[in-house]
């Protein structure tokens, strides 16, 4: 099936493992150029080589902690420099700590909020054309898919446990 995305450029965060990686592989398989983002540079570069080799695709690894306020703009700039623009942004990086709202430390709360919520807005700010200096042409089509993990905490944990029994 032709998804109409061949030749377009995607950024996928949280792309060295799990669902983020599966999304990056799917894009590569469909002829997209993929910028993959994760914190561990070594693992990320190995992932980039594997995906590039398996799907004969152009894959650019950019190691970054998405919770760092300065990083989304740097990642988008790297994508623009290498591929000329961004068509698809997938915010797949997530972070979840087990436990209740009242039990979570302020550090955990900040960490999760920066990673899951603030990073998404920053990536969109950096990637979406909002002024004349935009790296994106006015006639290009853009898709922005946001994935988030829900029920990953105690509820999902206990359900998953039960499914193992």
């Amino acid at each position, binding site marked *: 099936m032709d998804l109409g995305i061949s030749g377009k450029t995607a950024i996928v965060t949280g792309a060295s*493992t799990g669902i983020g990686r599966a999304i990056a592989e799917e894009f590569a398989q469909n002829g997209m150029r993929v910028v993959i983002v994760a914190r561990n540079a070594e693992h990320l570069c190995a992932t980039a080589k594997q995906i590039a080799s398996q799907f004969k695709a152009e894959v650019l690894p950019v190691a970054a902690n998405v919770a760092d306020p300065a990083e989304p703009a740097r990642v988008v700039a790297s994508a623009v420099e290498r591929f000329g623009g961004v068509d698809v942004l997938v915010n797949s990086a997530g972070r979840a700590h087990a436990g209740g709202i009242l039990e979570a430390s302020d550090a955990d709360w900040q960490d999760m909020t920066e990673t*899951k919520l603030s990073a998404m807005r920053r990536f969109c700010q950096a990637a*979406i054309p909002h002024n004349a200096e935009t790296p994106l042409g006015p006639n290009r089509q853009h898709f*922005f898919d946001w994935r*988030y993990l829900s029920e990953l905490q105690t509820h999902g944990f206990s359900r998953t446990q039960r499914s193992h029994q």
Partner: protein
Amino acid sequence: MVSHALSAAINNLTRSMALELAHDGILVNAIGVGAILTDNWAHNMLPDVRKRRPEIAKQ
């Protein structure tokens, strides 16, 4: 549970941005996949939670 609160925030952020950007032909969408039994979940995340929060693991 913090994750649940943030997921709700992400949903509203998604709706607001979708409205702001629709006239530019930009689609903003959110997919809430819940907990998925991936290799990463089974081999890394679950054992990590069990280790850090034994009281939850007993439930």
